[in-house]
């Protein structure tokens, strides 16, 4: 059941962003607005409801990154920096895998 929830929530969020893309909004703009909207959804309790429904299908979207920074910053203001640091660590690790993927693909293509 949780996999179906993840599938549906992640799929619907992608459809919402795809609609914006079809209306000629640029990809970086959609991602930045999505990130910001994710943080706006926290005080309204929508983010928690979407995570409850979609689990990791919601957590691993850029939209939920806004929620991550919101809670991280709130915890930091309370003197607990771990959550804030963990989020940016995750961002660093994902970027590192991206760099490895890009360099690797370039090297493979160059060899051919």
């Amino acid at each position: 059941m949780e996999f179906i929830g993840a599938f549906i929530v992640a799929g619907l969020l992608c459809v919402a962003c795809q609609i914006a893309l079809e209306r000629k909004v640029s990809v970086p703009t959609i991602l930045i607005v999505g990130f910001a909207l994710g943080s706006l959804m926290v005080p309204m309790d929508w983010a928690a409801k979407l995570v409850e429904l979609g689990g990791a299908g919601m957590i691993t979207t850029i939209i939920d990154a806004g929620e991550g920074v919101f809670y991280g910053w709130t915890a930091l203001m309370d003197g607990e920096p771990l959550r804030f640091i963990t989020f940016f660590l995750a961002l660093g690790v994902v970027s590192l895998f991206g760099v490895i993927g890009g360099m690797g693909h370039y090297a493979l293509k160059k060899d051919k």
Partner: protein
Amino acid sequence: MKIAKNLVFAFLIGGALGALSQVFFKLALNLLGPSSPFICLFTLACMGLFGGLMYLVGFYQKLEQWGQFGAFLNFSGLASSVAMTVEAAKVEGDSTVKAIGKGLKLVLGVAGSGAIAAIIVATIDRILFSL
């Protein structure tokens, strides 16, 4: 008709990546325990690894072509976007350091702007909550 097709593919590919994330999330829960503060870090790192590896073998580019935002929105899409930027910079003849810098600039552009907005919202919420 083309728009409808794009929306369906975005839903299917985005949903499939969401379900895959749930697999990694369950794996993290089992490996680290439910009280670990690193469950999200592990799940996001796994999706980043998936995105980077799939880009390396040339599959993620196809996913992005078919699913567009279905493939962009997940953290695996962020890894793929970095990979694409780094590769494009290398093809243009940039040095490795400069290419990596361009990739990181992309992440900072998206995550930095989004994070600033999220920090402002969290601060306002805290101020309003404490009143």
